[in-house]
């Protein structure tokens, strides 16, 4: 078909099509399982070797010793580039990536997530939500 006729077919197709986008935040598509989102720290596994700190391209993770064989991780979400290299580098599987991606915050301090392994209790800053 030539000219306007060809257009007609496209117009009809487009009218019947649903929009390609969803109306966020009312509707949320589930994140892909493979998505590299925020990094989670599992204090029980950590041996404090600090290889993750050494390999992190963004200097976003700081491991500190807070007690005998107890370690704390501070991950700066504003520096992290979500490459998950720390997860690959960790010899003890003390880090893993989650699919959490809604990490925006108005207060920069909320972007520092500290996880410490004291007496099996985990204190984690409230996950920053968009305000």
């Amino acid at each position, binding site marked *: 078909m030539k000219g306007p006729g060809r257009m007609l077919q496209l117009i009809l197709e487009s009218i019947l099509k649903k929009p*390609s986008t969803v109306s966020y935040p009312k509707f949320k598509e589930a994140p*892909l399982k493979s*998505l590299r989102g925020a990094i989670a720290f599992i204090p029980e596994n950590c041996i404090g070797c600090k290889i993750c700190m050494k390999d992190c391209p963004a200097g976003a993770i700081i491991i500190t010793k807070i007690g005998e064989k107890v370690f704390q991780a501070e991950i700066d979400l504003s520096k992290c580039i979500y490459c998950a290299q720390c997860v*690959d580098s960790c010899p003890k599987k003390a880090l893993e990536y989650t699919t959490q991606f809604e990490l925006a915050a108005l207060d920069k301090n909320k972007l520092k997530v500290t996880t410490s392994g004291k007496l099996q209790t985990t204190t984690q800053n409230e996950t920053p939500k968009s305000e």
Partner: protein
Amino acid sequence: MPKKVRIPVGPQHPALKEPVSFSLELSGERILEATIRLGYNHRGIEKACEERSYIQDLYLLERICGICSHSHSTCFVQAVEEIAKLEVPKRGLYIRTLIAELERVHSHLLWLGVAGHEIGFDTLLMFTWNDREIVMDLLAETTGNRVNYGINSIGGVRRDITDEQIKKIMKAMDTLEERTKYYIKIATEETTIIQRLSGVGVLSHDDAVKLGAVGPTARASSVDRDVRRDDPYAAYGEIKFKVITDNHNDVYGRTIVRVLELMESYNIIRQLLQNIPAGPIAVKAPRKIPAGEALSRYEAPRGEDVHYVKSNGTENPERVKVRAPTLANIQAVAHMLKDRYLADMPIIIAAIDPCFSCTDRAITVKDLGQKSEGLMQWGDLRKYSIEWYKGKGIDFSNLKKI
């Protein structure tokens, strides 16, 4: 004869997406001479690489470009693997090649949309960018991210591909092929497109060779050059594909080359997925890379990308040099602009698919009033800038020293 005027376009200009400066000498609407100045986007990445380990550099170099990020990271790891004499497992190479081709597909679709936008054909932009989402989703699913995939590691790749993903990619290729056939039809039949793009930005075969053009820009001037075939890397040695060339020598030719390359990419992706061998995806790489040097070439969507790496036996490279394809093509742009109308400028520039921040590797700051050139140390430069701002009534001297 109308009077000659010289107008600056950029470094900040509404028509430009990145800072670059064009100085155009015009006679009426006609461009007599175009001078290009780069350097506004210099980020010091090469120097930063020397201060970081090979593992960190991988992610840094990936961020040279948001569109051909895999190109830069692959080009770099290839060089490092050559120095360290690492044999990447076949499956790893296949996955690397797969991501490379998916990246080419998304980049070419993106370009097609941008080109449509530059000539006022925004419907094409909407169409191609909608289709591009299919590829972006595939990339996100296989690598974990839509851009800056982080799939490479020194010695292989970081994520394996599942049978389910293979099936999904195969299916997506059918959809995309269908769509691309439609774009080929548009590009070859639609008179408005043909007339708008024909004869614009002419670059003859000899000029393309002389000015060192690369990628689709060169291939549209019948320069039969493609690193994938001429110097096969990754899995390209085992794949059959055609190198697309065209003899239109203009923006129209560059469009044809890119849409036909899309079809070749689908063909390559299918072959890769059908023949992907089982086995490991990576070998373990040492942290310290033995002393040596290597040059690596890679056919990025925009043309040949070159990385040079020199190691000295430590964990950090001694030197990393990057030559992005846009740098090779930029001289051709100055040539193509000559004797064209000002209104053709956006599409001529867009036709090489430029990426200026990838290109900027060095800056020279010149004081045009002074004849002599001199080197300024960091401290002197700092002092000079503080004094200069003081003259303007702003005092920076209390700022923390960096």
